[in-house]
């Protein structure tokens, strides 16, 4: 990565910049989704792109998620590099046959003859008081399927570099953005052109007593918890895998071996989820160096409730993570 300057971008600006750069480089890159053109999406992530690239590159679609995702699959096979916008991650369910039975398998089933170079951008994350059908974090579903890659950045700089790589990749990739980070999270983003490879985790904070393995929105939570832990003399390391598949197993395992304790934190459901998988990877790889079980922390196992006091219980917080980490460290 080139030198970081003092330039700060929001997460949304970083995503937009990645798309704009790739669209300038490669005329095959286009955007399909609902209200992506003049409206720039309801989250205003794509504002300005239609002005630069026109409606021949930025396509407003009908509310037909299965249809336009399927079109992206076919277009990707035949020379286009579509970036599909699925407004809320909850609507992924409507695209699932196209992603799981079609996009994910075409390369393999054709013996490597066809490729599906497409990106599906969507959101995750609760806390917007949007209730059960607009708050889910369903990224684990996609991680389960061979043939798909899953990218889940936590900072503006990572979002930009990883999205550029994803667009250039030859495979179907699902790119998850926490909708609470779009405008609220700002961070330094290098001015020059750069990409970040898939499958490379990053240590976001170095520590020695416990590893907090966190994804997307939970990285900020982990960093906050690490600050709190520092105050009581516990040094926490925060590691962000950045892509869930491919997965940088080594960095996670090495961190856990070094600290001897690990908690995995992710906003999806823990049951059969991302935290379960990462915890297994760490347990298998670092077992003999661990001083305690690898803990999982994810969304509560309930549909996300609307009522604010209830919704707030469902998402892991700095305090919950702090308490769990403190307890784990005091046991050994």
């Amino acid at each position, binding site marked *: 990565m080139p030198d970081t300057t003092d330039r700060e971008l929001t997460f949304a600006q970083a995503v937009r910049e990645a798309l704009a750069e790739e669209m300038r480089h490669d005329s095959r890159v286009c955007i399909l989704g*609902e*209200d992506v053109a003049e409206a720039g999406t309801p989250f205003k992530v794509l504002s300005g792109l239609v002005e630069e690239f026109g409606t021949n590159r930025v396509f*407003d679609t009908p*509310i037909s998620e299965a249809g336009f995702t399927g079109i992206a699959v076919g277009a990707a096979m035949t020379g286009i590099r579509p970036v599909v916008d699925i407004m809320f991650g909850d609507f992924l369910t409507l695209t699932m046959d196209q992603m799981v039975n079609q996009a994910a398998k075409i390369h393999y089933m054709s013996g490597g003859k066809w490729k599906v170079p497409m990106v599906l951008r969507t959101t995750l994350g609760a806390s917007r008081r949007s209730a059960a*059908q607009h708050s889910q974090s369903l990224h684990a579903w996609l991680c389960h399927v061979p043939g798909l890659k899953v990218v889940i950045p936590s900072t503006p700089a990572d979002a930009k570099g990883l999205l550029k790589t994803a667009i250039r990749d030859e495979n179907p990739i699902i790119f998850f953005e926490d909708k609470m980070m779009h405008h609220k999270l700002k961070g330094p983003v290098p001015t020059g052109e750069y990409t970040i490879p898939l499958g490379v985790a990053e240590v976001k904070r170095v520590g020695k007593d416990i590893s907090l393995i966190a994804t997307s929105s939970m990285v900020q939570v982990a960093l906050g918890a690490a600050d709190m832990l520092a105050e009581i003399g516990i040094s926490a390391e925060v590691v962000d895998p950045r892509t869930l598949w491919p997965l940088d197993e080594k960095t996670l395992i090495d961190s856990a071996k070094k600290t001897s304790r690990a908690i995995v934190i992710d906003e999806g459901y823990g049951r059969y989820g991302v935290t379960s998988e990462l915890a297994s990877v760490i347990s298998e790889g670092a077992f003999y160096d661990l001083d305690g079980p690898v803990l999982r922390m994810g969304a509560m*196992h309930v549909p996300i409730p609307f009522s604010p006091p209830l919704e707030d219980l469902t998402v892991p917080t700095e305090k919950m993570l702090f308490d769990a980490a403190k307890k784990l460290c005091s046991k050994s």
Partner: protein
Amino acid sequence: MTPQTEEAVNMFSKELALHAYRQMLRIRMFEEQVNELYTRALMPGLAHLYSGEEAIAVGICEALKKEDYVTSTHRGHGHCLAKGATPNLMFAELLGKEAGYCHGKGGSMHIADPATGNLGANAIVGGSMGIATGAAFSSKYLNNGLVAVCFFGEGALGQGLLYEVLNIAQLWKLPVIYVCENNLYNEYTHYSETTAGDICARATAFGVKAETVDGQDVQAVYSKAKQLIDDARAGGGPAFLLCNTYRYTGHHVGDINREYYRTKQEEQEWKTGRDPIQLHGERLLHEGFTDKATLDALESEVREEMKAAVEFAIATPYPALEEVEMHVYA
């Protein structure tokens, strides 16, 4: 006017006409308060207002029995109220309170109420098409004579599910009415940019009878709905009713600056020339069903009803925290 519609119009008695007026007014005033709650930052999240479209929910629900089923959308307050919901419990739900219809778990986009046949509002565009058709399936299976109405916006015409259930409903002659509320916009995009061909032809392609009605005219909506509902109840199978309408305000309460997708002039034309409440009020006066003073008094009465409901909702408590894990399984 054909003899049949004349008969239908006649069925819109004075009593019904006055009740329809009151119901439309209640929806309008309910939402006035919703917007107020939003601007005063008292409501969590967002809400999608139905103002301008009241004649559809009211015209249709007046033609339904209390036990008949409806499914609703993200823009669902009007459907709920028209089907008989109580404002107190709706506002409590909008504020996430225990007393709300869904114990605060659903919020604005998910109000459900078995007592009034409300199978639930749905935040997935087109998400209730299977549910409504399923309710019609059970009606036929149980032979209980109930009808199901599926309300959806024209944006939902983009969902493939509609075409699957239309086909099945017609094959199996299910008592379901698909009510398409064409308010011209899918969020921030004009429907003409997302909708090819003729809307009703999509239904008639399956042999489902389709009608179009002025969605600003509660009497016209009622008359058409009554025919289609009675026919469905008698075993005549499904129908599709296209209601042309307009939403007065933003896609949701936070959608304030709308000039990039529609003009203020267009909004003004609908509000002044085609307001369903005003038009129906004029009709009531013209028919001599009521007088101006009574209508004015009704407006204050309804506004007070809604204000009191808001006060109830603000004062009533949030659910106990243990409730978060209740209702995941039956």
